Each structure stands twice: as structure tokens, then as C-alpha cells.
């Protein structure tokens, strides 16, 4: 015998969910507050050198905080524009890296001989710091914009490539046996087995790749100039505008965090649940 229990009225947000939200958001907020307070105590108003948080807020509130999209010509633009310009470069370089990294990764990962031949080269190249590529790319492209994109590409491609290779190599023998017994065609194998099986690895690579490209672009822009968050920071430095530097850093951090979460979100939607 089962009795039907009347369901409680559904709330827009159940108390339990609300509690959970508070539980995850509250601790970092408190931590942030403590940090800011400490900072303020160490750097009180009027002190020389590093400005305190309140000073930063005051000095950059207008126009950088309330109006991210002002445009006073040349490089004097709101932080929204600066970030967008940087993101554009990242997107171009990163997309290129994703396409090249995944496809070359599949090729190298599924062929032992090619892997043996190329892997050592990859291992050496991937340790070269992004900025070290910049002089070379400027010589090759003779223009700022493509060389910036190239630096993004060369930074992001290694983790994507290497993770894809590992992903392909790690495909469980069981799935390969299924392929062999059913004599699956190449295309069916790639679409039905190889890609789904390697997807978790590919996304790990993409996530690392997007983080690295964001790191690289800020550094690259400092050198090549033009509109972009990196140059904004560098420009503020040359003009000794400490508060602007700090607000620029905050923007860089927040955008980088958002990018990482975005790729993570896409991965959670695309990657199949591993059977346990």
C-alpha cells in the first residue's frame, strides 16, 4: 500500500537550494572583504607607493568603472573595448589552435610511428615561453596583429595537441576490440568511438589552452601596443597610474576566470558521463 503524500507547494527557489547558494558564495565574499580590509590597513590613504582599495576605487570610478565603453579615440578607450579587442585576438588564435591541435592530435595519437617521430619535438617546443615566439613571429609576419594571433596560437596549441594525443592513445582496449570485431569503417570509428572517447581529454586541453592564451595575450600586448587590456596596463605603468594598473589587473583576472568557466561549462554539456 502506498499513500499519496500531498506535494508541498513548489517555491521558485527551494530553501535547500538557497542555503547551498549562500554556502558557496558567502565564504569567498568574506575572504575578499578581509583581504581588502588588510590591504587598506597596510596602504592607508595618502601613503606613498601602492594605493589602498578605497583610493583605487575613487581614482578609477569615473570613467573606468562606471563607463567601460567610452571612446576618446586612439588607445584611450573604456576597459570594455580594451577587453573586447584582446578577446578577439584570443578567439582567433585559440580557434586556430583548437582546430590544428585536435586534428593533428588525432593523427599523431592513432599512429605509433608518427607519434614516436614527432613527440620529442613537441616536448621541446612546448617548453618555449610564449613571449619568446614574439620576435620570430614579428619577423615572419611584419605586422603586429597577425604576430599577436600567432603567439596565442603557438601558446594554446601544445596543451590541446598533447592532451588529444593522450586521449586517443588512452581509448580503452574494449572499444578498440569492438571496432576490430565489427570491422568499423574509418569514419564510423572516428565519429562513434574515437572522438567521444577522447573528448574528455580534448576538453582538458582546451581548458588549459584558453587559460594560457589569455596569459599570453596580456603579455604580448604589453610589447606590441595598440588597443587591448595588456597595453592598457603597460600604458598606465609608463604614466605611473597605479590605480589604473590595479583595475586593469582585476579585469584580466575576471575575464580569465570567465573564459575558463565557459569552456568547462561547454565540456560538461558535451562530454558523456563516464560509466562507473
Amino acid at each position, binding site marked *: 500500500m502506498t499513500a499519496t503524500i500531498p506535494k508541498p507547494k513548489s517555491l521558485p527557489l527551494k530553501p535547500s537550494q538557497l542555503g547551498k547558494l549562500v554556502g558557496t558564495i558567502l565564504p569567498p565574499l568574506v575572504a575578499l572583504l578581509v583581504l581588502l580590509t588588510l590591504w587598506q590597513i597596510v596602504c592607508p590613504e595618502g601613503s606613498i607607493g601602492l594605493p589602498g582599495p578605497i583610493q583605487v576605487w575613487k581614482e578609477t570610478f569615473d570613467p573606468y568603472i562606471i563607463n567601460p565603453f567610452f571612446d576618446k579615440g586612439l588607445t584611450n578607450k573604456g576597459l570594455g573595448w580594451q577587453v573586447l579587442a584582446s578577446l578577439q585576438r584570443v578567439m582567433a588564435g585559440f580557434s586556430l589552435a583548437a582546430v590544428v591541435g585536435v586534428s593533428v592530435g588525432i593523427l599523431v595519437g592513432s599512429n605509433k610511428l608518427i607519434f614516436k617521430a614527432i613527440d620529442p619535438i613537441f616536448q621541446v617546443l612546448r617548453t618555449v615561453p610564449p613571449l619568446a615566439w614574439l620576435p620570430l613571429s614579428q619577423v615572419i609576419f611584419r605586422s603586429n596583429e597577425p604576430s599577436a594571433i600567432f603567439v596565442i596560437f603557438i601558446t594554446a596549441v601544445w596543451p590541446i595537441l598533447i592532451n588529444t594525443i593522450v586521449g586517443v592513445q588512452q581509448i580503452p582496449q574494449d572499444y578498440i576490440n569492438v571496432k576490430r570485431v565489427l570491422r568499423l569503417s574509418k569514419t564510423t570509428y572516428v565519429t562513434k568511438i574515437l572522438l567521444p572517447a577522447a573528448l574528455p581529454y580534448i576538453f582538458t586541453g582546451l581548458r588549459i589552452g584558453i587559460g594560457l592564451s589569455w596569459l599570453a595575450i596580456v603579455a604580448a600586448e604589453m610589447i606590441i601596443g595598440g588597443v587591448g587590456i595588456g597595453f592598457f596596463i603597460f600604458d598606465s605603468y609608463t604614466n605611473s597610474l597605479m590605480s589604473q594598473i590595479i583595475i586593469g589587473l582585476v579585469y584580466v583576472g575576471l575575464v580569465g576566470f570567465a573564459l575558463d568557466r565557459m569552456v568547462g561549462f561547454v565540456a560538461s554539456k558535451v562530454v558523456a558521463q*563516464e560509466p562507473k
Partner: protein
Amino acid sequence: MFLEVDHVDKVFPLANGGRYIALENIDLQIKQGEFVSLIGHSGCGKSTLLNMIAGLDLPSKGGVVLEGRQIAAPGPDKMVVFQNYSLLPWLTVRENIALAVNEVYRDKPASERREIIEHHIDLVNLRPAAKKRPAQLSGGMKQRVAIARALSIRPKLLLLDEPFGALDALTRGGLQEQLMHICEESKVTAVMVTHDVDEALLLSDRVVMLTNGPASHIGQILTVDLPRPRQRMQVVKHPDYYPMRAEIIEFLNQQKRAKKRQAELQSSTSVMVSQLPKTTLNIGFMPLTDCAPLAIAQEKGFFAKHGLTVNLQKASSWDDIASGVADRRFDAAQMVAAMPLAMTIGMGGQPSVPTSTSLVLSRNGNAITLSKELYERGAQSLNELKSVIAMDKDRRYRIGIVHDCSMHNLMLRYWLASGNIDPDQEVDLVILPPQAMVDQLRKGQIDGFCVGEPWGSQAVVEGIGFVVATDLEIWAGNPEKVLGAREDWQQQNPEAMLALVKALLEACEFCDEPRHRVEVAEILSRPNYLGVPLAALTPSLTGPYIRSTNDPGQMLPRFHQFHLDNSNCPRRVEGLWILSQLARWNITPFPNNWIEVLDRVRRVDIFLEASRQLGQVGIEPDRDAFQLFDGLVFDPDRPLEYLRQQAISRDYPVQEIDLDRADRKLARTR
């Protein structure tokens, strides 16, 4: 034959440069529509064997043939149901099945393919779960998907690798019945790996039992004659069910013990192996024509070639040989074929001395010789002998043999019994050393003997006896003399053992060469060996072989067989025949753990390793049924039935022989 696993070996190279022999000489034929189970402990190579049938792995030697074509690669005609299901987690139940169907039936129209897919979803009752992914299914449901996927493409051969191993008992039972019905309906041929005895009995037509690795081989094949269609609850009530179940369990227990023993041995090997490799050996032999391999190995330098210094020591009787090996006077010895088995089991109430053999030194070479008196009374054949004995009610004829567990005894008894002469009731068999036979016959102390050459020919030469039958007429190619050594000696001196086997193998090859035979006869006639005139040796070695004074002689090139036709392999099947006869005359009890006993006593592995190192083609011949001259078939899977069919026999106990307890007992007395 539908599927033939043809003498398959599987060897894996090891990281340290060695090789691991996983499977050795697997030979198995499977008929169309048959359901065969492979059973054995983990690590016995049963999954490796299944993978080779599937084509996922290739044999190192031999081949697997499906409908006349050798299997070289996997394919949908040999569909596998894997142990861990191997479903793709990102595809639904339907998509998983569709993947197989769409790929295999690429040429069929989409509607037809859809029909096949839906039919198989229904076949395993998964309609409500068709849209679910594997992660949402229970283990039993997943295995049903895997079975549906396998069946949907109508394979010629269905291969199942422990398909129900990971399931709970209730689910397993239901699925087994389902699988059985599907197999019966679609008449599919199936090979299943399992370690569940009841599962094997319920589903199979035959159960193939594999021994432990390394060098795992087929220990026994059980035919399951239960009527079909079978039902789980009915099957267990069948009178044959529990005996069959007991047989498999007994086998598995034997193998478990053997495995444990092997592990113990391995952990203590470093201590046991002598620090200095032994190179000086004392080897006992009996002065008979078929000690030729030992004499030749000594005289032609085969021992020396393999780094051994050998003192050949002439023994006075076979008992002297047995006690010499037991009390370590001899490191190894020429033995009569049944002696290592009988010593291991413990003959005539004596304590067991685990002894093993890794080489058959000679085959054939015996003759049954009767006195001139019997010849004149008309006993010129087995039947005539029977009537002479029947007429002479008052007289007990005496026939000489050399030892209870010599082939002479077993063959003579077999020969007499098949002529309806009870060897214990109607004649007296007396044990005498071989050298004394002719003398005793001359003096009329005995009326005949069964002994190795040259004594039969000697009696003929002297005109006091005639040869009524030779080995060739009773069981051509029977194992006669073997190389025997204590098991512990062999474990302590693995290098010396291997060197000894290699030296003797080369000597055996030398002896079988017709152009060497004159030299062999000359060496044997020397006083330190037989010390008899050349004329007594040549009839059996070079021919012509003369049976009686008036006989013009006959060429019998295989009267002694030292090497040809894989003579030197200590075949386990022959060992089993010997065990059956030792039990028949109650010389030793019949061990119901015969597979274990034979694996330990008849060291085919050492023989094969020695052959391999010499570059000789050494194989263990098939474990097929065979028959002696009377036509009674000996099936190595049913030795007890063979014993039951033999009209004249003693009462014999059938019991488990605990070889390790014997070991311990021995260790205490040491």
C-alpha cells in the same frame, strides 16, 4: 570440421628477454551448432585462447581454422561478448545495437536494418530501456545489450568471455536460460569462457578443462550428455549431473593445489637450486639392448658435449634401480616406463618417492618368449597357449617378468588377459633380473618370459625358446624405457637435468640411424655394458629378427625405436594408460587426480624445452583415443570406463593421491 584449433601455442615475450608460454599444443575440434565451455583457474590462458579464436590475437604456433579458412583477423562472423560488456557509454541501447547492424548489413535497406535492431531489442526484453545509455542500466541489462548486439549480426561463431561473471546469482540464472534458448533456436555455435561449473554444465555440450599456466594444456574434456532443451531445475535432477559436476570440481581442486605448490616452489627456488651447477652425475642402467642411448651418449661424447661427466653404473635389477634413485645413489636412471609413476604414487605399499621423467629413451623392444616345450605342445599363439593351459589343469606355468611396474609385466598381463588367461589365477608370474631369464629357462625353472632384448634372441639362438609375440604386435610404439630422476633432484639441478635430456636426445637420434646400428651393437657388446656376443644383439638392432630356430627371420626396423615419430616425448596420455594398468592389477591405486599426477611425473615441458634448444621438432602428440591389438578403445577422457570394460582385473581402489603430503613425509624422514 566447423572450427578447428590446430595445435596452438601462445608464447609471450618477457621484458627480461625470456618467454612465457601461456598455452601449449591446444588441439580442439568443434562441430557446427555445438556449445563448448572453456574452464580453468584464472591465468590458465582461457581468455587468450578465446581471443585467438576471435582473431583478436594470433597464435605463436599452429592456427585456428573456421570453415576451412585460417583466422587471421577479427570480424563480425566471430562475434565476441566481452566480459565487461564493452558497450559504448555515449550511445543508447538502440544505438549500440545499431552500430553493429548498420556496419555489418551496410547493403541492406534502412527499413530492414531497423527491423533487425528492434527485433533484437525485443529478444532480450529491453524495449523499455531502448533509449537509455549504459550508465543508466544494471549489469544484467548491459550484458543483455551486449548479447543482443552480438546476435543481431548473425555470427557464425559466438564467443563469450565470462559473460555472466560480474552478475548476481539471480540475474545470472535468468540470463543463462535466455542465452541457452536463443542459442538453441538460432543454432549458433558458441565457445564460452567461464569459471562457473554449473553454468558450464547447463549450457555446454562439452566442457574443456584447461590446466594452469604456464604452458597450459587441455587436461580433460567432459562430454555433457544431458538432453536438450534443458531447464535449470530439471538438469540438476538428472542422475549424471552430480557425477559430472564432481569431476569438474575435482579437476579444479587439483589445479588449485598444483598452483599453490608452484607458488611455494617459486618462492623457495632460490634456496633450493644448488649453488654450483652439478656436472658429475651417477646414472644407473640395466644392461639391455635398449640402454643404447646411455651407452652411446657416453661413448660418442654427447654427455661431454653438454658439459656432463657421467658415471654409468650397472644395476643388478630394476628394484636396485628404484632403490638407487630413492636413496640418492643414482642422480638419475634408466627406468621401466611405469616406474616413475609407481614410485610417485607409492608401489606395493612402499612410501611415495616423487619421481619424474622428461624423456622416453626407447619404444618397443620386448618380446614374449616361451619354452621349446610349450612350442612342441602346440602353444604357438595366444589362443593355443590358452588351450594348453586349460588342458594342463594340474600344472602352473611360470613366466618370468623383470619388475611389477615394467612394461613387460603390463604388456604380458594385457596380452594374457585378452586371450582370456588370468595372469594371476592361471599362471605364475615370477620376478627375475633380465640377465637370469635365459639361464632359468634353460634349467626349466620357468616356461617363458617377457623381457627386453637381447634375452629373447639369446633364447632363440640357444634353441631353448621361441618368440610368440613382440611389442610390435601388442602395442606398436609403446613407451619402454624412460629417464627417471627424483623430483627434488630435478628441481635442485635444473641445468644438469636439461643438459642430460639434451645429451640423451641427441644420443637417441644417433641410435635410430640405421647406418649407426652396427656400431651401436658393437659398443653394447662390450663387457662394461652387456658383455654378450654380437650375434645376440644384432637380430633386434639390425635384423633380421628371428623368432624360432626354423624362422628365416624378418626385418623389423622398428623393433627398437629410439627417436623417430616423436618417440622421446613422455606423453601424458600414455602415462594415463600405464596408470590404468597399474590399477587394473592393483599394483598402485588409481589416482582420481590423474591429471595432476601426470603433469608432475611426465615433464613434457622439459622435453619440449630441450628439443627447442637442440632445434629438433619436439611436440606432444594429440591426446586422441588409441587402442592396443585387441581393439578396445582407450579414451583419455574416460580412463575408468576403460578399466571397467576389461573383463579380467583385480579390485583396485580409486583415490586421491596427495603428492604434497608425500613430499612432507619425505622431508621429515630426511
